[in-house]
């Protein structure tokens, strides 16, 4: 049952990213609210706080992508898919992850590493007064998120393999909804 255990470990990882993303969203919501209140009521503006808004926003949706992959929340064109048996769906997910998702996620992650490390080497900061330093952190979210998408994709492959091997009851295979 190694494959099942591995699938569960990957699921735990993806769920953790989802929890982090949810926290980032709440922080972002209050961040934007705070900035509006400060500007309108107290005539005070902080460029750093304004930049933090999109930092939180970006990290939130980027980390949300692998999480959503694990929860089956990514939209599919299901004109045909919905009528297929559980096993056929599993084959599509297995092959799709292997030939579409993984190469894409890994290649973007690979170029993302160079992208982020360049910002690190230059010591890149915001160009605006009072803006946030350490631009490499938010840039590093790109390779991190795409590696995580790849990992989550491996999770989807394992789920498909385990379904094909009969380790998952087919009924459990229905994608969860919102």
């Amino acid at each position, binding site marked *: 049952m190694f494959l099942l255990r591995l699938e569960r470990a990957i699921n735990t990882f993806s769920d953790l990213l989802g929890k982090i993303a949810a926290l980032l969203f709440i922080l972002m919501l209050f961040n934007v609210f705070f900035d509006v209140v400060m500007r309108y009521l107290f005539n005070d*503006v902080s460029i750093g706080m304004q930049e933090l808004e999109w930092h939180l926003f970006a990290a939130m949706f980027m980390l949300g992508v692998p999480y959503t992959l694990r929860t089956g929340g990514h939209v599919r064109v299901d004109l045909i898919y919905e009528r297929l048996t559980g096993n056929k769906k599993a084959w599509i997910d297995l092959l799709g992850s292997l030939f579409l998702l993984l190469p894409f996620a890994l290649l973007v992650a690979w170029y993302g590493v160079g992208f982020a490390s360049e910002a690190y080497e*230059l010591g*890149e900061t915001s*160009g*605006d007064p009072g803006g946030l330093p350490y631009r490499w952190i938010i840039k590093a979210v790109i390779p991190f998120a795409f590696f995580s998408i790849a990992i989550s994709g491996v999770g989807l492959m394992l789920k498909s393999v385990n379904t094909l091997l009969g380790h998952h009851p087919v009924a459990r295979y229905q994608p969860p909804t919102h």
Partner: protein
Amino acid sequence: VAALAAPAQAADNDKVYRLKMAETWPSNFPIFGDAPRNMAKMAETMSNGRLKITIDSKNKHKAPFGIFDMVRAGQYDMGHSASYYWKGKVPNTLYFTTMPFGMTAPEQYGWFYNGGGMELMEKVYSKYGLMSFPGGNTGNQMGGWFQKEINSLDDLQGLKMRIPGFAGEVLAKLGAKPTNIPAGELYTALERRTIDALEWVGPSLDLRMGFHKIAPYYYTGWHEPATELQFLVNERTWKKLPADLQEILRVAMRTAAYDMYIQSYHMSAENWDLMKKAHPDIQIKSFPADVIGAMKTANTELLKEKAAADPLAKEIITSQAMYMQKSRVWTDISDKAYLNSLSSQ
């Protein structure tokens, strides 16, 4: 430029060199976008078709502020942008666009080509495998559109203004609040007075933003007296070009830059005329002397801090200050005296 002295390869008279250039601007962006296109056209004609430059706009590469990295990495051979956009990456790139209370366009061109500016720019950019050339000047930019009048330093307190970069830093020192607003929401923000003021460029490009319909005061400039855009060239690309094409490219860039300066001047005059006809009650204002004085003091202090923190910054700031001192005397007794003598009639 020292790189010019580098030995070029034996010229192969038939070989066509194809360069890819990325610009910060969206396609069909007037004036700014015309400069690289004029340049490419001139280079192709002068080289008899041996130098072909294609231009990708922001809509294609989607990285308006990634030009520095993309040209550095060689994904593009050239770029058209502005030097001060890179100050978050390389702080000393700040000085090669324009500075608050700095030189006017003719003075600054004098500094670039004859006053050591090009050499200093090379000193900053060569570390990154890049070459930078003047890329076209907007001329004096306007101080911006204001919803309320600025009569004293008190009026700057808590003034919410969209004004990015170093000029924002200067205003912040005097109690104003530089504010980030996405370009698409600027109109609504100024109209609804979410912000009190904003600066954009000048009539040449402000007209299409429509700010003149919603803000009564148009302040004259102080913060960008001579905004010079930039041609960036990847050094490896440059070295691959035969000597004659290097020279053709250099001349094309220099000519296109100067052409843009003329075009900006012309379009500002034309568009200001249009704005004034459509909205005769726009009020042109200048900041009162004490406000300008305080801004100048804040500016000097900030420059002192920057000079103290970095020897190369100090060298650039000093070079600009010395050159401005000398050239301003001439500006005063030539253009300024001429205009003064006319206005006193």
